[in-house]
């Protein structure tokens, strides 16, 4: 087990190194840099001013020197300064992380708490009207883009209640606090819940046909015990895998949801930083996300062993 852990940790480091190289060079391949954008916005170019600014920001140096400067700083905890706001990158990134983390956590919670029970119900009631209705709901969840769903929610809120749930950094009531996160989390988590539901349903259907389920029923176990204790426990493995993958994909959904609901989280900030070619922000933020995703995958792998006694990580 210990050797497996060491091997996994080493592989994680190699993966993160690879990601750092890819992020750094991909950003440089994209045409234009911050200086181009600043001058494009001003509609003029003074070559001397441009050269001064490139020198000041250090983007005139050889790429390998720039990479070393960034990665060595990253390892030392020095994340540099944002090219745009001229504030320390960490100061810009840190306050936004809890906002996105709350949103992502709630979206995942929504996804699991809605998707798993509905998936079980759909499987247990296979072929009934309820099953068809739930399958339609799950299909709509997979088909609706989250930005469109978000706009739909906002428009309906304004039309029906004259109010709209956009971000409020200092909510006065619990209802406002709830609306601040819950509504956008539901908008972004809907797709994920639909996917979870479909995976749970198909996995449950497979398990429910197993001999041991029939045995459990023959023993006189209640339907709830059969479905949730015996069947779900064995059907949950692919669901965990999907939720793990969804956690990584969630960032894509959060970008549009944060934009539509005007939530100042890291996902929207990342898009803005890419638009400005704000390298220190993009590089550090993507690395942070990469670290989270790599560790999330690692955790999911570890969870397999917890949920499925057949899995053992041996040396």
């Amino acid at each position, binding site marked *: 087990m210990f050797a497996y852990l060491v091997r996994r940790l080493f592989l994680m480091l190699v993966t993160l190194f690879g990601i750092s190289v890819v992020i750094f060079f991909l950003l440089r391949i994209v045409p234009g840099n911050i200086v181009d954008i600043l001058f494009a916005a001003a509609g*003029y170019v003074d070559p001397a001013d441009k050269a001064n600014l490139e020198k000041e920001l250090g983007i005139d140096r050889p790429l390998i020197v720039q990479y070393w400067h960034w990665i060595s700083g990253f390892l030392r905890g020095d994340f540099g300064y944002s090219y745009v706001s001229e504030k320390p990158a960490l100061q810009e990134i840190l306050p936004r992380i809890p906002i996105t983390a709350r949103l992502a956590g709630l979206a995942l919670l929504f996804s699991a708490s809605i998707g798993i029970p509905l998936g079980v119900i759909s499987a247990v009631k296979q072929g009934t009207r309820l099953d068809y209705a739930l399958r339609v709901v799950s299909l709509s969840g997979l088909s609706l883009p989250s930005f469109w769903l978000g*706009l739909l929610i906002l428009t309906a809120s304004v039309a029906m209640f004259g109010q*709209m749930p956009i971000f409020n950094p200092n909510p006065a009531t619990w209802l406002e606090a709830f609306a601040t996160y819950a509504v956008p989390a539901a908008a972004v988590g809907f797709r994920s819940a639909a996917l979870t539901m479909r995976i749970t349903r198909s996995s449950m259907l497979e398990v429910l046909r197993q001999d041991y389920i029939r045995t459990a029923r023959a023993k006189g176990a209640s339907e709830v015990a059969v479905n949730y204790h015996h069947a779900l426990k064995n059907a949950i493995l692919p669901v965990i895998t999907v939720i793990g993958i969804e956690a990584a994909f969630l960032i894509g959904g959060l970008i549009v949801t944060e934009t539509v609901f*005007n939530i100042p989280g890291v996902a929207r900030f990342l898009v803005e930083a890419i638009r400005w070619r704000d390298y220190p922000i993009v590089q550090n933020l993507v690395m942070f996300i990469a670290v989270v995703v790599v560790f999330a995958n690692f955790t999911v792998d570890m969870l397999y062993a917890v949920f499925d006694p057949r899995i053992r990580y041996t040396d």
Partner: protein
Amino acid sequence: MRSVRALAATAALSLLAFSTIAFAGAPKQGGILRMYHRDSPGNASIHEGATYSLNVPFMPVFNNLVIYKQDEAQNRMDNIIPDLAESWAWVNDNKTLTFKLRQGVKWHDGKPFTSADVKCTFEMLMGKSQQKFRQNPRKTWYEQVNDISTNGDFEVSFNLKRPQPSLLALLASGYTPVYPCHVSPGDMRTHPIGTGPFKFVEFKANESIKLTRNTDYWRKGRPYLDGIEFTIIPNRSTAILAFVAGKFDMTFPTEVSIPLLKDVKSQAPNAVCVVEPNNVATNIIVNSSAPPFDNIDIRRAMALALDRKAFISIMFEGQGDVGGTLLPPPNGLWGMPKEMLETIPGYGPDVKANREEAKKLMQKAGYGPDKHLAVKVSTRNIPIYRDPAVILIDQLKSIYIDGELDVVETANWFPKVARKDYMIGLNLTGNAVDDPDQSFYENYSCGSERNYTNYCNKEIEKLFDVQSQETDIAKRKKLVWDIDKKLQEDVARPIIFHARTGTCWQPYVKGVTVMSNSSYNGYRYEDVWMDK
């Protein structure tokens, strides 16, 4: 007796009515004006930017030497009023502009304002000081200024190479605040210090900008508001919905398009909305240094093919203006009259006849029904650029030109234009000041950084200088019209239309004036108040 009673009753009623009006109309102190902002400005330094995304939130932090009267929609020479200057005078054959400065004014950090601040601000803009701006997009505005001299702490003079009456107009723009000498340009980008009615509190990129009332403002009794808060909402649909839901007191100025205006009025019927020209001209940039547009006939044919009214009808439901380089009257001060405009090829009302003429020119150049000219129409990947480009491509089809849309990301647009890597481009040109000097020198002068097409006509260049020095407004207007006509005939940068856009606010917001011939100069907000 009866008549006396009637008279007394009338007098009492009149008094009551007057006092009611006066009471309702008297500005009230207090309240935070909540407005959404369309995007996150790169920094907080007006001098280092070239977008009104900077002027709107940061103009209230500063004062100029002079300023356009904030409660009049049209910017004119005769409504320029003193700001940090108490008075001004042209001396030395109109080659020196001297300002007497206001005394007792303090910067927001408590330091006193003096003539040294004016001198160092403008020397920095002219590129003559030790401290440098990271970017200085309006350096060319001060090309005729030789030097700045001070006489004591409260008098400053701009010494010019030749008379330039429009300098005063440039100094009155929202783009021309006075900066403090003791604060570095770098600090001004992150924490601006001014003398204006509102103090800077914080700027959270992509999130919000907050200003608070300057209780020590030199203009007593102003501002009325306790502060202004801008929430940055780049998504226009979300922003408009939030305004309709009452989350904001005002939309971002000139940011409500004509189709969106209808939505606002239907969902928030009490909202006050105005539509004004924003002095932004949509135009075509033509690469005349390479075939096929090095051929003047093809350029002229293209200009003749334009159906300007169709653009305005499709994009603005008829609410736009046809004009030359300068914004047409009545909102514009210097635009050609309609009769003169219609004598320019392509501006005549008979589009069909114009296009027949264009076809003949195309045939002369070797193109026709069997041999179309294939061109790429490059433009920025933003709706206000992309939409007219699509209409342009459609219109060019009528004269044997097959256009292909080439959308370019903002970061690459200007480098692409600068290296002449385009055939024709759809471009927008905003004018900070409704004055020919700003427009002519910036966009059509030989060697100007913003003369994207490299149009260079030495004869016209001489005329630029002649009109620039002319102090008689009627004479100058005539000169300007002739120049503008010539620029359109040369197809230097064909102007398609001048846009109009909307601004809305809730009915309790008072004292807002939206400028009608520039979208850069009317955001001091010291006279704005809220009746609630």
